[in-house]
């Protein structure tokens, strides 16, 4: 009666501190440039080296510019951070996919698409969106820099075991409703802290019929309701996705791996600490109106009134709407927007570009909109070319930029100016997330495409 999470967690238990956390073995550590330098310097100060360098994969993504990557990064501090990762990887013999490397891209896009992320693994990275990798049936979660240092030093982490939650989404999705909408719907229902302390397994008809890209989007956003991570039991969709990927097992190793992977599911009588049920038919294209990802609604709905908010939360709620320049009780449909961002570890994969292209094909971008179209990796960029999506986008007035985290958190030059509205396929609408004073509306690639065509918040179902 074990859950999938319990099975993977227990299989990685090295030892347990009495009345304390578990020492958990980690199969894969991903490092990017922002949250690793202090971990490497801590390691060096202790006179240590990474215990298992072959299990560690490094790449810059947060600071990388989305243009002219063949030139030096202009911002000196960004450049130092990116170079520090390269130096640390070189010093300790770690795999490093630097800028312009054919495997470079956003770490949570690159791991799965290269078969580095596999079912049954434990995976950590100094990045809260590490939950993405759970889509392949791994236990993956974000950690802090002290914890990165722990894993570098010992290939283990000390961690208290979270509680388990299963979120089942049955029924089916209507036309125009994507994995992003499912995630934003769940987060709106759960609230931004509603799954704190839990590790989530997603189940149900809607999840089973979701593509691998969709599952990656859904698991990616688990952290936005506070969950430690999110995961989906591997199935034929997972195995088909993995087969032939560069680092995935090959030949007889593939057969051995498959035999193991097929055992990776929660037992029929597994007991979760919490069970939540949603109906996929209730979900429409979603958009956020406030300053945390839990402040989302169906795109045709009205912003909740102040009276509908519990009294203790009203100051925060008013502050949030004031920041966004919106009034309680009003509709968002038809509101002017200034920027559109397609990309990020949430929606920077091929399927997201296919969806966006399907809507803008043969049409033109509204000239008032500035659009940043940023593939999640060079691999995705190549797929765009192979499928002719690049031509569709260019003909519709969009330019494709070079891969990286880009405007999701605006650590590079892709910053939304103060007071401007951005319909963004990324994961966070926090104050200032896309630049100081920037106003972010989180949505799916389809909603982003509809906004790019009209310059307004638009129901994508009216453009299909």
């Amino acid at each position, binding site marked *: 009666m074990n859950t999938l999470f319990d099975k993977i967690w227990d299989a990685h238990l090295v030892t347990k501190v009495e009345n304390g956390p578990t020492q958990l*073995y980690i199969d894969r550590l991903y490092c990017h440039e922002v949250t690793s*330098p*202090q971990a490497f310097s801590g390691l060096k100060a202790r006179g240590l080296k990474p215990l298992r360098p072959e299990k560690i994969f490094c790449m810059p993504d*947060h600071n990388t510019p989305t243009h002219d990557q063949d030139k030096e990064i202009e911002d000196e501090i960004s450049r130092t951070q990116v170079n520090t990762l390269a130096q640390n990887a070189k010093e300790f013999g770690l795999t490093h996919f630097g800028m312009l490397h054919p495997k470079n891209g956003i770490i949570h896009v690159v791991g799965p698409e290269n078969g580095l992320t596999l079912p049954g693994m434990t995976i950590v990275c100094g990045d809260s969106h590490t939950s993405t990798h759970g889509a392949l049936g791994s236990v993956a979660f974000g950690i802090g820099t002290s914890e990165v240092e722990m894993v570098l030093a010992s290939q283990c982490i000390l961690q208290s075991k979270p509680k388990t939650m299963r979120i089942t989404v049955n029924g089916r999705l209507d036309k125009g409703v994507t994995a992003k909408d499912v995630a934003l719907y769940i987060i709106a229902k759960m609230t931004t802290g509603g799954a704190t302390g839990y590790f989530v397994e997603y189940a149900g008809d809607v999840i089973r019929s979701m593509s691998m890209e969709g599952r990656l989007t859904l698991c990616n956003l688990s952290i936005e309701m506070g969950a430690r991570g999110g995961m989906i039991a591997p199935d034929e969709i997972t195995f088909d996705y993995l087969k032939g990927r560069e680092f995935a097992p090959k030949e007889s190793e593939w057969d051995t791996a498959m035999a193991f992977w097929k055992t990776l599911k929660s037992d029929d009588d597994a007991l979760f600490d919490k069970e939540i049920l949603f109906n996929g038919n209730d979900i429409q294209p979603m958009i956020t109106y406030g300053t945390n990802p839990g402040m989302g609604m169906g795109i045709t709905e009205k912003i909740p009134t102040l009276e509908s908010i519990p009294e203790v939360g009203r100051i925060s709620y008013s502050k949030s709407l004031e920041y966004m320049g919106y009034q309680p009780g009003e509709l968002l449909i038809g509101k002017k927007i200034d920027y559109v961002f397609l990309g990020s570890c949430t929606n920077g994969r091929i399927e997201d570009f296919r969806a966006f292209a399907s809507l803008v094909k043969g049409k033109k971008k509204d000239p008032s909109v500035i659009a940043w179209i940023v593939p999640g990796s060079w691999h995705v960029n190549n797929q765009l070319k192979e499928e002719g999506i690049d031509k569709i986008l260019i003909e519709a007035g969009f330019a494709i930029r070079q891969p990286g985290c880009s405007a999701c958190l605006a650590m590079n030059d892709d910053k939304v100016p103060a007071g401007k509205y951005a319909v963004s396929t990324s994961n966070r609408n926090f104050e200032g997330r896309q630049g*100081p004073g920037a106003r972010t509306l989180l949505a799916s690639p389809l909603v982003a495409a509809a906004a790019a065509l009209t310059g307004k918040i638009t129901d994508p179902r009216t453009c299909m």
Partner: protein
Amino acid sequence: MKNEKFTILTSTCVPLPLENVDTDQIIPARFLKATTKDGFGDNLFRDWRYDKQGNQIGSFVLNDPTYSGQILVAGKNFGSGSSREHAAWAIAGYGFRVVISSFFADIFKNNALNNFVLPIVVSEPFLASLFNCISKNPETKVEVNLADQTVINTALGVSEHFEINPYKKHCLMNGLDDIDFLLSNKDKIEAWETENQQF
């Protein structure tokens, strides 16, 4: 900020009665580019604390001389969002040693503990009355006793028990960190590797 033993702290408080304060507010992404742990305290709550020209915003609590102390008191769900430990470095760097709230995000809580900043979860009524006391009298002191796991609002003489993992409590009280412990189990790590299928 590292390896400071924590026993008892009595201090006035800085109140921040907002919910869902995320780590992008605690330390915005554009300040994450350093390769050391120093200096983040200067940019704690940067965009609430300073305007675009870099002038202090007088209404923000950190700029209000009425309030000071080593304890930050914040609304529900403090530290949500990004895993950036820079948020904990900023809080510690500014001089806070305790954050009191009715609810913390998981990763922030771990990051705080790993930097010897104690996150204390109190009940909603305790938090509400503490905000009330501080607003009436900014000199209100709170006493935190880690050994007893009690937090006391000295203005009212009201105390509450708080939970902390016994292992983490031991680390905090003795100024120890996790890496020494993990490496002391190297034989167990190697035994695990021998017994288990390696990816």
